[in-house]
């Protein structure tokens, strides 16, 4: 793997990457500034908000509750309903509020991703509703939505095997980049959104738009994983802040300090 040729190639690549500065001034492996807040809505059972660059997504959770219509009921587990929706004012041109083909697809892939994590067997015949509202869009909204939805589910007290966190990578002008923005998504050669369960080490969402070689794919995937782990830490921080506001004294931590 690390023969001289490879090393040289790598070095030259790194040099190139150092020169390459993205359209918004970021380095290739740099995330946009992000912030997650949990428990932001009063009336929903659980809620969260994520700001990832220009993205602003609000996720809310209701349930578990009785499922309607009754004929859809699953006897052995709960049904997870996901709705990804972009508000009319989320884009530069007004978007029709009617669910588009794209939104229906994203709702489905997000549902498939979250279903892996939620312990649905605990609530047979019930349904859990997850609403993700994109208030402002700037590329990579599907992975940001998954990230916010997982925090909202945890805030609602719904048992989960692991959190779900997403991040995207892509390719612009021959460079592999992390956290694809809107311009890069439109002009770039490829786009690779992924969502993972970081502790279970499972990939729950993986889509690709455009063309990547096998090596490029590996590189992009690793980069997206790195971004996801960064966001995971933010998720944990957002969740633990709610509890820290309750003035918990962490005895274990205290002992370590002593």
């Amino acid at each position: 793997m690390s023969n001289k040729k490879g090393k040289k190639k790598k070095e030259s690549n790194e040099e190139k990457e150092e020169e390459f500065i993205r359209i918004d001034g970021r380095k290739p492996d740099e995330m946009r500034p992000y912030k997650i807040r949990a428990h932001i809505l009063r009336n929903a059972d659980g809620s969260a908000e994520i700001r990832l660059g220009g993205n602003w997504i609000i996720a809310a959770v209701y349930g578990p509750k009785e499922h309607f219509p009754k004929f859809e009921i699953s006897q052995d587990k709960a049904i997870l309903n996901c709705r990804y929706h972009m508000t009319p004012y989320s884009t530069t041109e007004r978007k029709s509020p009617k669910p588009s083909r794209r939104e229906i697809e994203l709702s489905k892939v997000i549902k498939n991703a979250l279903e892996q994590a939620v312990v649905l067997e605990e609530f047979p015949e019930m349904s859990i509703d997850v609403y993700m509202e994109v208030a402002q869009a700037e590329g990579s909204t599907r992975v940001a939505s998954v990230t916010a939805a997982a925090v909202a589910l945890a805030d609602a007290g719904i048992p989960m095997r692991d959190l779900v966190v997403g991040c995207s990578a892509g390719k612009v002008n021959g460079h592999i980049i992390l956290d694809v923005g809107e311009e890069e998504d439109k002009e770039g050669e490829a786009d690779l959104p992924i969502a993972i369960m970081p502790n279970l080490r499972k990939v729950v969402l993986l889509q690709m738009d455009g063309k990547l070689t096998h090596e490029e794919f590996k590189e992009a995937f690793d980069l997206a994983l790195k971004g996801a782990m960064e966001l995971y830490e933010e998720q944990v921080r957002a969740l633990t802040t709610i509890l820290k506001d309750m003035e918990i004294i962490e005895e274990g931590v205290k002992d370590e300090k002593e």
Partner: protein
Amino acid sequence: MKSSKRIVVPGTTVDKNVRYNRIGEYFVRDYRGLVATLLGVVQQGRGGIDLIPYKDVYRPSRGDYVIGVVVGYAPNGWILDIGSYTKAFLPASEMISNRRFDPRRDELSKYLAVGDVVGVKISDVRRLGYFGATLRQSPEDKDKRLGRIRGYYIMKVTTTKLPRIIGKKGSMIRLIKQKIKGDIVIAQNGVILFKGPYEEYLLLKKIINLIAAKTFASGLTDTVAGILGISSPREAVAKEPSKEVKEEKSENEDKEVNSDE
């Protein structure tokens, strides 16, 4: 030191080896070891491990005293919303005691209408379908407020906060009842009822909100005593005639509901 408290999020591996005598709810076991499924605080000690969740869905068990709202009629009874994942069914025969319920003659809304608040006991919990509710009193709960409840202020908290509102061996609620004059009813689904002057209600609400906001803090009893203007809470509590104290929190609750008559 084995006994420790720490914050966990869903998916946190609490311990790689599962070697406890007693494992609380809210954990899953897989190749990662013992894994938390909810956001909360994990407490270890005395060979056991427990997770105190930040929020939880109320899962009733048989015999729970709950307060619900009538949300609909069935041909032979009422549908109650008890704040759980599914609703409860109260048969009409529970309200009509002296004769058989006759659907042609008896108008259900004359007994209980939609919107009425009812205190019931859970008689039946099945895996599927509604919970069964009853008004039948057993000797231990002869003082419980079963049936229609009127003229109370209603408050609601997450069920995970109830143990703190009641306190260790009922110390917190006893402290509150010392200063706040009125009738306080605590149901196991997190509904708290209060009958008394409006000022007292506001004070009670303030205290409950404080306890709910600082569920995991230590020394809460002292803080509450400060608000109530009691100088030495421990003595005040000790002055109360000692009652039989059972370990189960639910039974503690029942006791509190009873003891205030």
